[in-house]
Protein backbone atom coordinates (compact mmCIF):
# COMPACT_ATOMS: atom_id res chain seq x y z
CA UNK A 1 0.00 0.00 0.00
CA UNK A 2 1.50 3.33 -1.01
CA UNK A 3 1.34 5.97 1.69
CA UNK A 4 0.18 8.87 -0.47
CA UNK A 5 -0.73 11.99 1.45
CA UNK A 6 -3.98 13.62 0.46
CA UNK A 7 -4.48 17.36 0.28
CA UNK A 8 -6.60 19.17 2.83
CA UNK A 9 -9.26 19.83 0.20
CA UNK A 10 -9.66 16.16 -0.66
CA UNK A 11 -9.83 15.23 3.00
CA UNK A 12 -12.48 17.80 3.81
CA UNK A 13 -14.50 16.81 0.74
CA UNK A 14 -14.56 13.14 1.69
CA UNK A 15 -15.44 14.18 5.24
CA UNK A 16 -18.48 16.14 3.99
CA UNK A 17 -19.68 13.31 1.72
CA UNK A 18 -19.41 10.76 4.51
CA UNK A 19 -21.12 13.06 6.97
CA UNK A 20 -24.10 13.62 4.65
CA UNK A 21 -24.35 9.88 3.89
CA UNK A 22 -24.24 8.90 7.57
CA UNK A 23 -26.83 11.53 8.52
CA UNK A 24 -29.14 10.25 5.78
CA UNK A 25 -28.75 6.66 7.02
CA UNK A 26 -29.39 7.80 10.60
CA UNK A 27 -32.53 9.70 9.56
CA UNK A 28 -33.74 6.64 7.65
CA UNK A 29 -33.27 4.39 10.67
CA UNK A 30 -34.82 6.65 13.28
CA UNK A 31 -37.34 8.30 10.87
CA UNK A 32 -38.00 11.11 13.34
CA UNK A 33 -36.89 14.71 13.72
CA UNK A 34 -36.83 14.89 17.54
CA UNK A 35 -34.10 17.17 18.83
CA UNK A 36 -32.54 14.50 21.07
CA UNK A 37 -32.17 11.94 18.30
CA UNK A 38 -30.90 14.54 15.82
CA UNK A 39 -28.16 15.73 18.21
CA UNK A 40 -27.01 12.18 18.95
CA UNK A 41 -27.06 11.36 15.24
CA UNK A 42 -25.01 14.42 14.31
CA UNK A 43 -22.44 13.67 17.04
CA UNK A 44 -22.04 10.02 16.01
CA UNK A 45 -21.82 10.95 12.31
CA UNK A 46 -19.16 13.58 13.05
CA UNK A 47 -16.97 11.15 14.99
CA UNK A 48 -17.43 8.34 12.47
CA UNK A 49 -16.72 10.51 9.44
CA UNK A 50 -13.53 11.85 11.04
CA UNK A 51 -12.40 8.27 11.73
CA UNK A 52 -13.35 6.70 8.36
CA UNK A 53 -12.64 9.56 5.92
CA UNK A 54 -9.13 8.21 5.18
CA UNK A 55 -10.50 4.78 4.23
CA UNK A 56 -13.08 6.48 2.05
CA UNK A 57 -10.34 8.31 0.13
CA UNK A 58 -8.68 4.98 -0.67
CA UNK A 59 -11.81 3.97 -2.63
CA UNK A 60 -10.95 6.72 -5.10
CA UNK A 61 -14.55 7.70 -5.82
CA UNK A 62 -15.12 10.64 -8.20
CA UNK A 63 -16.32 13.95 -6.79
CA UNK A 64 -19.93 15.04 -6.91
CA UNK A 65 -21.17 16.95 -9.97
CA UNK A 66 -24.68 17.49 -11.36
CA UNK A 67 -23.84 15.68 -14.61
CA UNK A 68 -22.56 12.61 -12.78
CA UNK A 69 -25.60 12.60 -10.51
CA UNK A 70 -28.01 12.68 -13.48
CA UNK A 71 -26.12 9.85 -15.18
CA UNK A 72 -26.18 7.88 -11.93
CA UNK A 73 -29.97 8.22 -11.79
CA UNK A 74 -30.29 7.10 -15.43
CA UNK A 75 -27.94 4.22 -14.66
CA UNK A 76 -30.08 3.08 -11.73
CA UNK A 77 -33.22 3.18 -13.90
CA UNK A 78 -31.50 1.15 -16.65
CA UNK A 79 -30.28 -1.32 -14.04
CA UNK A 80 -33.79 -1.81 -12.65
CA UNK A 81 -35.21 -2.37 -16.11
CA UNK A 82 -32.51 -4.99 -16.75
CA UNK A 83 -33.13 -6.68 -13.39
CA UNK A 84 -36.84 -7.04 -14.20
CA UNK A 85 -36.02 -8.38 -17.66
CA UNK A 86 -33.50 -10.81 -16.14
CA UNK A 87 -36.05 -12.20 -13.76
CA UNK A 88 -38.68 -12.83 -16.42
CA UNK A 89 -35.98 -14.38 -18.62
CA UNK A 90 -34.80 -16.82 -15.94
CA UNK A 91 -38.40 -17.57 -14.91
CA UNK A 92 -39.25 -18.44 -18.51
CA UNK A 93 -36.26 -20.77 -18.78
CA UNK A 94 -37.08 -22.48 -15.50
CA UNK A 95 -40.79 -23.02 -16.19
CA UNK A 96 -40.41 -24.17 -19.81
CA UNK A 97 -40.61 -28.01 -19.85
CA UNK A 98 -37.65 -28.41 -22.23
CA UNK A 99 -35.44 -25.80 -20.48
CA UNK A 100 -34.13 -23.77 -23.46
CA UNK A 101 -30.62 -23.17 -22.08
CA UNK A 102 -27.36 -23.04 -24.01
CA UNK A 103 -24.76 -22.28 -21.35
CA UNK A 104 -21.13 -21.38 -21.89
CA UNK A 105 -18.24 -19.41 -20.44
CA UNK A 106 -17.03 -16.39 -22.46
CA UNK A 107 -14.62 -13.47 -22.00
CA UNK A 108 -15.46 -9.78 -22.38
CA UNK A 109 -13.28 -6.71 -22.32
CA UNK A 110 -13.79 -3.46 -20.43
CA UNK A 111 -12.32 0.02 -20.86
CA UNK A 112 -12.96 1.11 -17.29
CA UNK A 113 -9.87 1.95 -15.26
CA UNK A 114 -10.70 2.26 -11.57
CA UNK A 115 -11.36 -0.81 -9.42
CA UNK A 116 -14.64 0.44 -8.03
CA UNK A 117 -16.03 1.04 -11.54
CA UNK A 118 -15.07 -2.49 -12.54
CA UNK A 119 -16.75 -3.84 -9.43
CA UNK A 120 -19.98 -1.98 -10.23
CA UNK A 121 -19.84 -3.26 -13.83
CA UNK A 122 -19.31 -6.85 -12.64
CA UNK A 123 -22.18 -6.62 -10.17
CA UNK A 124 -24.50 -5.16 -12.79
CA UNK A 125 -23.58 -7.94 -15.23
CA UNK A 126 -24.41 -10.49 -12.54
CA UNK A 127 -27.86 -8.95 -12.11
CA UNK A 128 -28.73 -8.75 -15.82
CA UNK A 129 -30.35 -11.32 -18.15
CA UNK A 130 -28.52 -14.62 -18.35
CA UNK A 131 -25.03 -13.40 -17.48
CA UNK A 132 -22.96 -14.01 -14.39
CA UNK A 133 -19.45 -12.71 -13.59
CA UNK A 134 -17.01 -15.43 -12.54
CA UNK A 135 -13.68 -13.60 -12.42
CA UNK A 136 -11.87 -10.35 -13.24
CA UNK A 137 -8.25 -10.10 -14.39
CA UNK A 138 -6.94 -6.73 -15.54
CA UNK A 139 -9.34 -5.47 -18.22
CA UNK A 140 -10.91 -8.88 -18.97
CA UNK A 141 -14.01 -10.34 -17.34
CA UNK A 142 -14.86 -14.06 -17.32
CA UNK A 143 -18.60 -14.52 -17.75
CA UNK A 144 -20.97 -17.46 -17.55
CA UNK A 145 -23.74 -16.98 -20.10
CA UNK A 146 -26.94 -19.02 -19.93
CA UNK A 147 -27.81 -18.49 -23.61
CA UNK A 148 -24.64 -18.01 -25.68
CA UNK A 149 -25.21 -15.80 -28.74
CA UNK A 150 -21.58 -15.08 -29.70
CA UNK A 151 -18.14 -16.46 -28.88
CA UNK A 152 -15.91 -13.74 -30.30
CA UNK A 153 -14.57 -11.34 -27.67
CA UNK A 154 -15.65 -8.20 -29.58
CA UNK A 155 -19.22 -9.36 -30.10
CA UNK A 156 -19.65 -10.53 -26.50
CA UNK A 157 -18.33 -7.18 -25.26
CA UNK A 158 -20.86 -5.38 -27.43
CA UNK A 159 -23.82 -7.50 -26.29
CA UNK A 160 -23.06 -7.78 -22.56
CA UNK A 161 -20.90 -4.86 -21.49
CA UNK A 162 -21.90 -1.93 -23.69
CA UNK A 163 -25.28 -1.05 -22.16
CA UNK A 164 -23.72 -0.28 -18.75
CA UNK A 165 -20.29 0.87 -19.80
CA UNK A 166 -21.52 3.96 -21.62
CA UNK A 167 -23.02 5.31 -18.38
CA UNK A 168 -20.20 4.19 -16.10
CA UNK A 169 -17.67 5.82 -18.42
CA UNK A 170 -19.30 9.21 -17.83
CA UNK A 171 -19.73 8.68 -14.09
CA UNK A 172 -16.11 7.63 -13.51
CA UNK A 173 -14.51 9.82 -16.18
Amino acid at each position, binding site marked *: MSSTSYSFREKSRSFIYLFVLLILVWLAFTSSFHLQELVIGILISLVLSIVISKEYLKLDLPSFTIKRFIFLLIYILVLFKEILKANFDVAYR*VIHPKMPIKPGIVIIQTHLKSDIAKMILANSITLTPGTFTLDILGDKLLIHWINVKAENIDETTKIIGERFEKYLKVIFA
Partner: protein
Amino acid sequence: MHLVGMLVTGFGVIFLFLGSLGIFRLPDVYNRLQAGTKCTTLGAFSSIIGVGIMEPTWFWKCLIIAVFILLSNPISSHALGRASCKSGVPLCKKTVVNKSKDFCKEGKK
Protein backbone atom coordinates in the same frame (compact mmCIF):
# COMPACT_ATOMS: atom_id res chain seq x y z
CA MET B 1 -51.91 1.29 0.58
CA HIS B 2 -52.22 -2.08 2.27
CA LEU B 3 -53.31 -3.67 -1.00
CA VAL B 4 -50.36 -2.21 -2.94
CA GLY B 5 -47.97 -3.57 -0.31
CA MET B 6 -49.60 -6.99 -0.51
CA LEU B 7 -49.27 -7.00 -4.31
CA VAL B 8 -45.57 -6.03 -4.21
CA THR B 9 -44.85 -8.66 -1.55
CA GLY B 10 -46.75 -11.28 -3.54
CA PHE B 11 -44.75 -10.40 -6.65
CA GLY B 12 -41.57 -10.96 -4.66
CA VAL B 13 -42.79 -14.25 -3.22
CA ILE B 14 -43.57 -15.59 -6.71
CA PHE B 15 -40.01 -14.84 -7.82
CA LEU B 16 -38.52 -16.40 -4.69
CA PHE B 17 -40.51 -19.55 -5.51
CA LEU B 18 -39.31 -19.50 -9.15
CA GLY B 19 -35.73 -19.09 -7.95
CA SER B 20 -35.93 -22.15 -5.73
CA LEU B 21 -37.60 -24.10 -8.55
CA GLY B 22 -34.68 -23.09 -10.77
CA ILE B 23 -32.17 -24.38 -8.22
CA PHE B 24 -33.87 -27.80 -8.46
CA ARG B 25 -34.33 -27.94 -12.21
CA LEU B 26 -31.17 -26.46 -13.76
CA PRO B 27 -28.27 -28.84 -14.50
CA ASP B 28 -25.01 -27.51 -12.99
CA VAL B 29 -23.59 -25.20 -10.33
CA TYR B 30 -23.23 -22.15 -12.58
CA ASN B 31 -26.77 -22.30 -13.99
CA ARG B 32 -28.16 -22.81 -10.51
CA LEU B 33 -26.27 -19.77 -9.29
CA GLN B 34 -27.83 -17.77 -12.13
CA ALA B 35 -31.33 -18.64 -10.95
CA GLY B 36 -30.33 -18.22 -7.33
CA THR B 37 -28.86 -14.75 -7.78
CA LYS B 38 -31.44 -13.12 -10.01
CA CYS B 39 -34.64 -14.42 -8.52
CA THR B 40 -33.61 -14.04 -4.90
CA THR B 41 -32.40 -10.48 -5.48
CA LEU B 42 -35.69 -9.26 -6.94
CA GLY B 43 -37.72 -11.54 -4.67
CA ALA B 44 -36.15 -10.37 -1.42
CA PHE B 45 -36.03 -6.77 -2.65
CA SER B 46 -39.70 -6.51 -3.50
CA SER B 47 -40.96 -8.47 -0.49
CA ILE B 48 -39.04 -6.16 1.87
CA ILE B 49 -40.20 -3.06 0.00
CA GLY B 50 -43.75 -4.43 0.13
CA VAL B 51 -43.56 -4.69 3.93
CA GLY B 52 -42.33 -1.09 3.94
CA ILE B 53 -45.34 0.03 1.90
CA MET B 54 -47.76 -1.80 4.19
CA GLU B 55 -46.27 -0.11 7.28
CA PRO B 56 -45.32 3.43 6.17
CA THR B 57 -43.31 4.14 9.35
CA TRP B 58 -40.95 1.31 8.47
CA PHE B 59 -40.48 2.34 4.85
CA TRP B 60 -37.03 3.96 5.13
CA LYS B 61 -35.62 1.17 7.26
CA CYS B 62 -36.89 -1.37 4.76
CA LEU B 63 -35.34 0.63 1.93
CA ILE B 64 -31.91 0.49 3.60
CA ILE B 65 -32.20 -3.27 4.12
CA ALA B 66 -33.31 -3.73 0.49
CA VAL B 67 -30.42 -1.65 -0.89
CA PHE B 68 -28.01 -3.66 1.24
CA ILE B 69 -29.38 -6.90 -0.24
CA LEU B 70 -29.12 -5.43 -3.74
CA LEU B 71 -25.43 -4.63 -3.14
CA SER B 72 -24.36 -7.76 -1.28
CA ASN B 73 -26.25 -10.52 -3.09
CA PRO B 74 -24.31 -10.39 -6.40
CA ILE B 75 -21.00 -10.24 -4.50
CA SER B 76 -21.72 -13.37 -2.45
CA SER B 77 -22.81 -15.39 -5.48
CA HIS B 78 -19.82 -14.09 -7.45
CA ALA B 79 -17.59 -15.50 -4.69
CA LEU B 80 -19.34 -18.88 -4.95
CA GLY B 81 -19.05 -18.92 -8.74
CA ARG B 82 -15.39 -17.93 -8.69
CA ALA B 83 -14.53 -20.58 -6.12
CA SER B 84 -16.26 -23.33 -8.07
CA CYS B 85 -14.57 -22.14 -11.29
CA LYS B 86 -11.12 -22.20 -9.66
CA SER B 87 -11.58 -25.61 -8.05
CA GLY B 88 -12.71 -27.08 -11.37
CA VAL B 89 -16.36 -27.95 -10.82
CA PRO B 90 -17.43 -29.59 -14.13
CA LEU B 91 -19.87 -27.90 -16.51
CA CYS B 92 -23.01 -29.64 -17.74
CA LYS B 93 -23.22 -31.48 -21.09
CA LYS B 94 -25.23 -28.74 -22.79
CA THR B 95 -22.31 -26.28 -22.50
CA VAL B 96 -21.31 -24.69 -25.81
CA VAL B 97 -18.04 -22.86 -25.12
CA ASN B 98 -15.60 -22.77 -22.23
CA LYS B 99 -12.96 -20.08 -22.34
CA SER B 100 -11.87 -20.25 -18.72
CA LYS B 101 -8.55 -21.91 -19.66
CA ASP B 102 -7.66 -19.15 -22.13
CA PHE B 103 -8.52 -16.68 -19.43
CA CYS B 104 -6.07 -18.22 -16.95
CA LYS B 105 -3.33 -18.20 -19.60
CA GLU B 106 -3.88 -14.53 -20.34
CA GLY B 107 -3.68 -13.77 -16.65
CA LYS B 108 -0.24 -15.37 -16.37
CA LYS B 109 1.30 -13.32 -19.20
